[in-house]
């Protein structure tokens, strides 16, 4: 997680007071005051004692409610909007049917990643975007500059974003909206949840089944109360969000991907649409094609350190022969794995599963192994 070192006041989400009432420990993240974990009380404490470990495990076994309102939401509309956006991303957007969402990337001419984002088709010539909090200003400037004047970008500052994640999420959603509960993975629909007009997608950032819910800011408290009123649900902070996504092998922008990493190196080649591989007509397309043909110099891999000590981001990775191998980009303790987990970039010749590596943790050599991602199997509904 990033902290801000200047003194600009933190922004808050519409759930700020709700978090504080629920025992949240607030920390700065991407310019916002965000809950990192909760000291739960009352009924909620009886379901989950709170803290990163318990919140993580509760999400894997029941359901967690995350406030991700710091993320950037926007509508993009105008004639030919899908084709226009394809000029900036490698994904197949034209082929995205109404009610469908796709994970894609804004890329630069060098083949680097400006941001990763969700794009949903929510009507004729109308897309809904969700981008990272830390990148929204960069993204929206980039989008405005790269799209024709006929395409209108509308930032949705008046909407909050919740994520309901975990195996019980679908049952909980079914009590509010059978239509939303029936969505397939990466399906999107406008539904009413407890009287609030929401845009719901079957997606998330934990590796579990679940939903992301865009809701008007002035109705998010009532919806959060409604959702945590169900016995399966507790609020979950950013601490567990990070350990959940790491176990799920999902990239965190700024750690695992950035403007200097390509989708090929990052193992995100699948993001490039089949049709897009005919023409490679998106920023950095030819760089990516070359990396696919000739091999990228390094690859993102899963890393399992021996023993119990986590190897954090920026840990140096060595090969067994003592040569430099790469760097850990995300690392910590996986509560479901019950051991240290990480991911990072290593030289291509060291990227095969089972390759032995050496991590330099506080000056000591810790043996580690390249392992397939994810660490915990995805449980998306297909």
């Amino acid at each position, binding site marked *: 997680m990033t902290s801000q070192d200047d003194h600009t006041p933190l922004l808050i989400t519409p759930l700020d007071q709700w978090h504080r009432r629920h025992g949240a420990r607030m920390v700065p993240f991407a310019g916002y005051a965000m809950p990192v974990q909760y000291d739960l009380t009352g009924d909620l404490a009886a379901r989950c004692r709170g803290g990163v*470990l318990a919140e993580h495990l509760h999400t894997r076994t029941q359901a967690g409610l995350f406030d991700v309102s710091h993320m950037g939401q926007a509508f993009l509309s105008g004639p030919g909007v899908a084709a226009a956006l394809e000029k900036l991303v490698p994904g197949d957007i034209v082929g995205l049917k109404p009610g469908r969402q796709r994970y894609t990337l804004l890329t630069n001419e060098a083949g680097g990643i400006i941001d990763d984002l969700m794009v949903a088709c929510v009507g004729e010539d109308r897309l809904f975007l969700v981008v990272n909090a830390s990148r929204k200003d960069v993204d929206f400037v980039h989008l405005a500059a790269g799209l024709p004047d006929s395409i209108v970008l509308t930032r949705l500052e008046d909407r909050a974003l919740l994520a309901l994640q975990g195996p019980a999420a679908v049952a909980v959603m079914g009590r509010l909206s059978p239509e939303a509960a029936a969505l397939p993975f990466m399906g999107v629909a406008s539904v009413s949840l407890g009287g609030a007009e929401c845009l719901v997608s079957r997606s998330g950032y934990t590796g579990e089944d679940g939903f992301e819910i865009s809701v008007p800011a002035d109705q998010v408290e009532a919806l959060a109360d409604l959702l945590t009123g169900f016995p399966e649900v507790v609020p979950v902070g950013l601490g*567990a969000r990070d350990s959940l996504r790491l176990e799920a092998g999902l990239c965190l922008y700024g750690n695992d991907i950035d403007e200097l990493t390509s989708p090929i190196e990052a193992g995100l080649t699948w993001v490039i649409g089949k049709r897009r591989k005919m023409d490679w007509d998106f920023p950095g397309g030819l760089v990516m094609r070359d990396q696919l043909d000739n091999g990228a110099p390094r690859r993102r891999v899963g890393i399992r350190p021996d023993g119990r000590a*986590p190897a954090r981001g920026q840990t140096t990775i060595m090969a067994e022969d003592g040569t430099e191998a790469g760097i850990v980009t995300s690392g910590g*303790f996986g509560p479901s794995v019950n051991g240290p987990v990480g991911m990072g970039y290593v030289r291509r010749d060291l990227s095969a599963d089972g390759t032995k590596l050496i991590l330099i943790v506080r000056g000591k050599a810790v043996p580690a192994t390249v392992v397939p991602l994810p660490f915990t199997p995805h449980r998306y509904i297909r």
Partner: protein
Amino acid sequence: MAKKDSDKRYTKDHEWVVLDGDIATVGITDHAQDQLGDLVHIELPELERAVSEAEACAVVESVKAASDVYAPLAGKVVEINETITEDPSIVNSDPEGEGWFFRLELDDPDTFETLLDQDAYDEFLETL
């Protein structure tokens, strides 16, 4: 707030110390474990290691981050609590009891008196 204990001393790095003869038992305070959150890994100093005052000699890792634990006073490590390396959650549940970290044979037992007493530590916590 932790209960009053006139024989227990503290550091501003949130270690507690209890002295028995010239042997000091050291752990981290309830405040420290609460701030760190769920501990998942602990590294203790090696036996016989000589440590100076404020020297980093143990590491505690929560899910999110690693933090150093410092020797509150100069001495030699004579005992370590391996129970907490096997189950770090003991430090969360009983930081100032079963969750002790290590015992030091102090170079100078009189240095114990230089540490913060309960009132001074409580006052220090108020300033944080």
